[in-house]
């Protein structure tokens, strides 16, 4: 199979000897991704801080004696206003000028202090606007937090022994409550994300260059010079597919490395460990992952070159490859939301099986047979596609010569 090395070398030189091309294929997407992610996380962090620093504007109706003092004691910053006009308060909450309206019943204090068994329990009502960040934060803090503390305080005045009311607690002092394999847990989190990212990176990295590989040569009229060389059509095909595999492999390594290095920036300061995605891989797992990733890169490159062969122009190839990308993307996403154990025959479904197997390797749940099936199906389909491409190279119509 002479010529594969030369063809592959030329395709690689096209990318790696051209600074502009290198920049646009490997670095520009990374820079854009990091910039966008950093911007988004910084903005959301700023918004969060802003909400935290905001002093809630509270309207309290029929505030019981000592409520103001209780709030002060609880060290909560707030601006409190008495309710004079209910409609005005409602309006203020609606347009975001006020954050929370607490309505104590008029007889609150008497009802609480004079409570007899069988009396109706008084109700405190709170009103807020969930569309307003400040209002939602005030509601979360006061309605579910501060008022509960206030209830406990009043309850303590009514009941001598608070312990009596607490039949049992759940995990109030149990630091060992989580029993799990740390390795597997890390794999689970990463396993839901990794197949998705690998899919995007391997396919997207190869897409731009791959569509040009054959359709571009046809368009520029340079394909015929290759076709009169004394090498087999299949060598031309393999040379191009291997080059594309290397390019997509390199681009995904660059992307993943950039993601790991710039993770703190992109997540606004939190590291992978905080998110529970720290993971140590065994040598076996790494070997299985590596073999599978090579097989996936082979299949994806074959798919993209196939599209490029049947297209007359690069533009046409780009539009044909989009639905393929969508399909691969959807199959990648499905594993993110699958909770049931996949059946054995799922590992016969191309593309989907690679996502399952990637996840399975990380969670250590994939069996040897399932892994073997995935690898076999992926390589076999890739080989079939190479055969189809080589056949298409023989066709005068397809090659437009």
């Amino acid at each position: 199979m002479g010529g594969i090395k030369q063809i592959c070398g030329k395709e690689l030189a096209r990318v790696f000897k051209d600074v502009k091309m290198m920049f646009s294929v490997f670095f520009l997407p990374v820079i854009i991704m990091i910039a966008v992610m950093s911007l988004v996380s910084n903005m959301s962090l700023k918004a969060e801080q802003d909400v935290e620093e905001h002093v809630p504007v509270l309207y309290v109706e029929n505030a019981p004696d000592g409520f103001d003092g209780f709030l002060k004691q609880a060290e909560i910053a707030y601006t409190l206003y008495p309710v004079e006009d209910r409609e005005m308060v409602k309006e203020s909450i609606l347009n975001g000028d006020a954050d929370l309206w607490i309505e104590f019943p008029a007889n609150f204090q008497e009802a609480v202090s004079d409570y007899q068994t069988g009396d109706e329990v008084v109700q405190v009502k709170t009103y807020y606007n969930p569309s307003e960040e400040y209002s939602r934060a005030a509601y979360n803090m006061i309605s579910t937090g501060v008022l509960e503390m206030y209830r406990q305080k009043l309850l303590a005045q009514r009941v001598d022994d608070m312990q009596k009311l607490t039949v049992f607690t759940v995990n109030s002092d149990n630091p060992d409550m989580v029993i799990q394999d740390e390795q597997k847990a890390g794999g689970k989190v990463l396993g839901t994300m990794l197949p998705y990212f690998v899919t995007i990176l391997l396919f997207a990295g190869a897409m731009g260059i791959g569509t040009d590989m054959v359709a571009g040569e046809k368009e520029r009229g340079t394909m015929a010079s290759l076709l009169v060389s004394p090498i087999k059509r299949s060598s031309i095909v393999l040379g191009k597919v291997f080059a594309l595999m290397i390019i997509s492999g390199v681009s995904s390594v660059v992307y993943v490395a950039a993601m790991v290095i710039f993770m703190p920036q992109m997540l606004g300061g939190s590291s992978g460990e905080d998110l529970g995605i720290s993971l140590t891989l065994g040598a076996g797992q790494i070997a299985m992952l590596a073999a599978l990733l090579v097989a996936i890169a082979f299949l994806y490159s074959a798919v993209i070159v196939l599209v490029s062969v049947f297209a007359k122009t690069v533009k046409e190839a780009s539009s044909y490859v989009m639905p393929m990308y969508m399909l691969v993307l959807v199959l990648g996403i499905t594993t993110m939301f699958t909770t049931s154990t996949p059946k054995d025959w799922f590992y016969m479904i191309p593309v989907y099986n690679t996502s399952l197997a990637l996840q399975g390797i990380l969670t250590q749940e994939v069996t040897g047979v399932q892994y073997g099936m995935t690898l076999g199906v992926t390589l076999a389909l890739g080989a079939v596609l190479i055969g189809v491409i080589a056949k298409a190279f023989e066709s005068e119509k397809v090659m437009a010569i």
Partner: protein
Amino acid sequence: MIEIRNLTKIYKLNKKQMKESKTTNPLKTAVDDLSLRAVPGEIYGLLGPNGAGKTTTLRCISTIIRPTKGEIYVAGHEVQKEPEQVREKIGFLTGDIKLDPQFSVDYMFDFFGKLHHVPQDKLRARKEELFDYFEIRDFAHKKIKELSTGMGQKAAIAVCLVHDPDIVIFDEPTNGLDVVTARGVTDYLKKLKNEGKLVIISTHIMSEAEKICDRIGVIIDGQKVAEGRLHEILQETGTGDLEDAFFELYRERKGEAL
């Protein structure tokens, strides 16, 4: 040696092509039962008007397209059975074949040299000779896209001859070249012939055929209507020059006065 036995090439036209050529027949016979023989040490010229089937014939010889019927032997290898061996023996160039614009002439020369398994020292010697002859040296490092049409054509010729082929097939060799470069190319073809190589060209330029071809095959509508040395064709048609001879043959074929 090139031997074509009863070559027929029929194209299937799609609807758009049928509309363009104003026909309802989806089959177009480009070459019709053509046979010829060209031997080492000669320049054989396929002469004919546009659309006569010259380029199709040369493309069949070069294994780019497959004959519908018939056999073609190139240096003893049949084009459909041993295409790689055929391609090993030939250098093929047409105006349609272009070099990758992103690479330099130097890179393309080395690339095709390696594809043709030319050893490193021979590759260097070939580069020396061809770059000197076609005066490429000054722009060898430039990318093909930066070259003028003439420079690009010269580069393409040099690259197609990298492996010192025994058989050189040129489709319209001087098409688009300025008069000086065209002369350089035709002189080089003569040089190749003198070295004992077989050169087969297609042309519609009568003076070119007259000057450089040892034997000429006249093709009209995919069929060979005359073949021989210039004086033989002139004698056969009773004319004084090739242009008159061609029109005589054309009139006979088409059955109409011109």
